[in-house]
């Protein structure tokens, strides 16, 4: 039991580290933020989703599960527009649009 707990602790620790690492990297990117989200979730479908793949797959950590509200929060402002979330979503809950014209991420050095 103790061993399992330790293992879990390592995983969650790595998870937090990774989130911090992503945050640091995102801080270098220029965005023209839109006032409205270009990613729309069907929260009802998300409630029934066990995997919640979007919450760990996104390279910009846009999706986070809020346990109190039993909802996925979407920090669309951080989106790198790669489109991975839409492809992995089990419940096809993500309505994926491009951000409005000239909104979203601006890569200058990629």
């Amino acid at each position, binding site marked *: 039991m103790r061993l399992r707990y330790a293992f879990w602790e390592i995983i969650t620790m790595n998870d937090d580290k990774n989130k911090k690492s992503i945050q640091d990297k995102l801080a270098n990117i220029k965005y023209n933020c839109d006032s409205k989200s270009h990613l729309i979730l069907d929260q009802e479908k998300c409630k029934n989703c066990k995997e919640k793949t979007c919450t760990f*797959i996104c390279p910009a950590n846009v999706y986070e599960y809020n346990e109190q509200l039993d909802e996925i929060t979407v920090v669309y402002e951080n989106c790198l527009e790669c489109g991975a979330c839409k*492809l992995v979503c089990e419940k096809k809950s993500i309505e994926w649009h491009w951000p409005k014209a000239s909104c979203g991420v601006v890569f200058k*050095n*990629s």
Partner: protein
Amino acid sequence: MDKIINNVDCIVIGAGPSGIAAAITVARSGKKVILIDRSEYPGSKNMYGGAVYKRALEELFCDDIQNMPYERIINDHTWAFLNDEGVFNISYNNPADSNAFAIKRFDLDSWMVNIAKKEGVYYIPSTLVTSLIIKDKKVVGIKTELEEYFAPVTIIANGANTILLGQAGLRKKDLEPKDVILTIKETLKLDKKTIEDRFNLKEDGTTGKNMLFFGSDFGNLKQYNNLFMMTFLFTFKDTIMLGVGCNLEDLKKNKLNINYILDEVKKHPVISQLIKDTKSIEYSAHIIPEGGFYDMPKLVSDGVMVAGDAAGFINGVHFEGTNFALISGKLAGETALDAIEKNDFSKNMLNNYIKRLEKSFIFKDLYTYRNVINLLHKRANSISVYYPNKIKEFFEIITGANNISKSQQYRKFLTNFIKERNILELFKDAFCALRCALDMLFGK
């Protein structure tokens, strides 16, 4: 609301390599073509590995490419297998060779768009195409957030994430995670002189290094033994591009975030030395459709064609994508011109685009490599874990000088090679290698 109606000969959606190539080709014959892009600046939504190829550029821009603001010519190539501490690599370096250029997409796309404008393309930036206008099953124009544009032929070239294909009935279902590589890249800033010293490059930018790393059996990635992933590194003028690509299905199965992989890669003893003292200045992500020949959407329908990443034209094994995009765009442009000439925009007429693709290297290569990525993906454990480790063991014998009889060590190595894993796996690897080799030899 007032709607301005705009009539042109051809609409091209997406100002990346394929879109620009298509638009230029049409504009050169004096036809009215618009090139629509959602970004404010060309290339600001794009990322790629790091090289664009001369032959494909030459076909479109001829002598203009001498003015291309590239950063380095990439002609020192390394393929490497990472194990937990070290690396085994093969290199090919020819300083006289100038086939690939390292250039940032912002610079490349801006340069190409400027040429396109000079050639008579109407470039419309900051405009998002929200949908296609379809009448009687024919694509007759596009809707943007503000306006509508009409043309008898539309070329869709807006990348891997295009949502327009579904509307035109060209793609029935989304890409599947197993056919997609999720790639992220960091742009690492380092003083120009240090880069040249570290990678042994010339000051004038006529040499540059490209490294591809296989293997995932190091650091915390050791707990995953089936990752189909690759790390790449390109040297630019005063930046190093370091990125990883990993199969989306593998990430999903292992509940892994790709940034975690990149951070582990950066900690590897060999790579951490290569990127020492660098400062991260940008982070980007993209998906690569690797489905290839069997996963292409329908490329043609009445009044519409698809080119570049949107069509999945990519050769993941050779890191080729920009050349596929440029040439497929050009061929789509040529077909559009034929159609305009004959005033026939039916599916039948536009099928010439497919005929042109079949004659070009694009379809031939896609066909040749139709199974390769899939076969390699199935052997992910061999490529990423087993062989990199065996290579390490082998070179430990060669370079070990460990006071043990060499013959004894060779025998142990060989027996381990067979015994350590189910022998069936060895046959599967051999079969995979043979299949790949046969595909290459008897491809198109």
